[in-house]
């Protein structure tokens, strides 16, 4: 094979990746239109587009632009940051089982938010909520990476993640346990299940800035993840400041996941699943996986949020419950696939 041949081969691969990314964008847009049209009043995608741009009846305009648009924007943005966080953590740790929810980040963020509500220091719609969630998420990811050290195996990561999420869960339970007001307990519990129902533009304003900043931080580190393919030491010899990279990833994940959890509660396993869906089409390059994983995360959460509105049931199914019901079996499947590596061998 000559130098020219491999330039051509690389060009073909780049075109395939671009095609896949464009297809994911189209899918996300389509799902957003369906999401805007789904609810007690069903609207066709055409009516939705009309209403979005100020046409159609007043009723459909109110439904689309004021009731359903915030929910759809949140589903898109939160799905994206969860998918992106998963891809970034998998890139940092060179490990396909890494994800925010396995490391206890959403659970810790939820604890931070619950504590703020229980203490009554702030209203459910104040910025204190996302800030507390971000601080707690930062703490959890930081502790996890401290425990993991430089070249942590799968087993250490998963055990440490289990410990951290258990601790966050226990701490949350303690707060609920000690809460004086039963209505407060009910509110916290429902909110912990993770839901996008009845979210307003106020919620969007609360979460979106943090999500955007977190995503920007993670995306800015893309090429460093690629260099990490050769391990931390070699990446450092190539000029990657690995210690700074870790800090950036912790900050990006904490901002994004903390901001998301503060308005929706815990929505798990999107970050684990999204990168895996994209690898067969995009390849394993951790830098190239970031954007497609974010789009896959958006598509997954939008689809899940549409599903909870369509599935007939006596009471509302929470979207966080649905993503876990689908995500955990997927996790089990991944464990089965990674069995050899988990058994202690070097994959």
């Amino acid at each position, binding site marked *: *094979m*000559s*130098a020219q*041949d*491999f*330039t051509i*081969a*690389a*060009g073909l*691969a*780049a075109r395939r990746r671009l095609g896949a990314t464009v297809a994911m964008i189209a899918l996300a847009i389509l799902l957003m239109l369906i999401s805007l049209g789904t609810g007690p009043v069903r609207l066709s995608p055409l009516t939705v587009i009309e209403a979005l741009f100020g046409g159609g009846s007043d009723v459909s305009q109110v439904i689309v632009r004021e009731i359903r648009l915030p929910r759809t924007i949140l589903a898109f943005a939160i799905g994206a940051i969860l998918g992106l966080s998963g891809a970034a953590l998998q890139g940092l740790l*060179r490990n396909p089982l890494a994800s925010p929810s396995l490391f206890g980040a959403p659970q810790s963020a939820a604890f931070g938010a619950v504590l703020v509500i229980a203490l009554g220091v702030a209203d459910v719609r104040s910025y204190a909520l996302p800030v507390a969630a971000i601080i707690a998420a930062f703490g959890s990811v930081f502790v996890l990476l401290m425990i993991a050290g430089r070249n942590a195996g799968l087993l250490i990561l998963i055990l440490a993640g289990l410990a951290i999420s258990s601790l966050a869960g226990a701490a949350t339970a303690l707060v609920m346990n000690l809460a004086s007001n039963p209505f407060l307990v009910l509110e916290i519990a429902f909110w912990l299940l993770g839901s996008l129902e009845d979210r307003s533009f106020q919620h969007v304003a609360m979460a979106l800035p943090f999500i955007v900043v977190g995503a920007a931080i993670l995306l800015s580190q893309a*090429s460093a993840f*690629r*260099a*990490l*393919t*050769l*391990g931390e*030491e*070699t990446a*450092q*010899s*190539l*000029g*990657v*400041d690995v210690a700074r990279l870790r800090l950036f990833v912790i900050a990006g994940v904490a901002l994004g996941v903390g901001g998301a959890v503060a308005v929706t509660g815990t929505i798990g396993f999107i970050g684990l699943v999204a990168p895996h869906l994209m690898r067969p089409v995009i*390849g*394993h*390059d*951790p*830098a190239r996986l970031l954007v497609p994983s974010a789009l896959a995360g958006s598509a997954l959460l939008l689809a899940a949020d549409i599903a909870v509105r369509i599935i007939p049931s006596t009471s509302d199914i929470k979207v966080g419950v649905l993503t876990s019901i689908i995500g955990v079996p997927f996790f089990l499947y991944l464990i089965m696939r990674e069995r050899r590596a988990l058994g202690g061998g070097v994959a």
Partner: protein
Amino acid sequence: MTMLSAEHLNVALGGRRVLRDVSLQLAAGHLVALVGPNGAGKTTLLRALAGLIPSVGVIKVGGEALAGLPLRERAKRFGYLPQGHMVHWPLPARDIVALGRYPHGATDPARLSPRDTEAVARAMQAADVMEFAERRVTELSGGERSRVALARVFAVEAPIILADEPTASLDPRHQIDVMKGLRAAADQGVLVIVVTHDLGLAARFADHALVLSQGHLASQGAPAVALSEAVMADVFRISAFRAEYQRETVIVPWAEI
């Protein structure tokens, strides 16, 4: 010309002194074999010289103090090949080799400048890995993977190459391939430092040998001299068969003493 020098280098890891007062001066265009028993501090010396771990003492690269160089500048001066040739994701061999251009600002293998593309192609030809450019490294044999790793280091086009046991777990043919590749780089003016346990390869291919023993330099010089019978006995606690074949030094470890 002195390419790399260290004066009174000391390294402590986890409270244990691993390197004691190591001083050396190494010239461009030399292949230097770094030998010593297990635990003598060979890998630590390599890492310290590349600035990957903190050390006390003065290291100079081409006359400049290593401590004063930013990370990116250091990366351009050292091609570092760690033990094991670990690759964590199944990327095509070409993308792995292209990572060698990372210090030069080429962080995306799909968008290399013509200059970087040429450097990658040169490195792949030098290491003879062109034929599996598009294959995933995880699907290659151990020997092929070690050649890809070598190509990745060549692609940096650094004046210094530091290779940590590049021949470990390779069959004899691939060991010779790798050593010849490194020798060729040295002949083009690169300073190559190779950590190895194979005293035979060290004696044959190196211009200069460094013998580490318990963290200090026990001996250094031309291989036949630095790996004298006395050093073999004191440092390695073995006797060796010594001869000359095709005008090259032959050392075969023989018996424990």
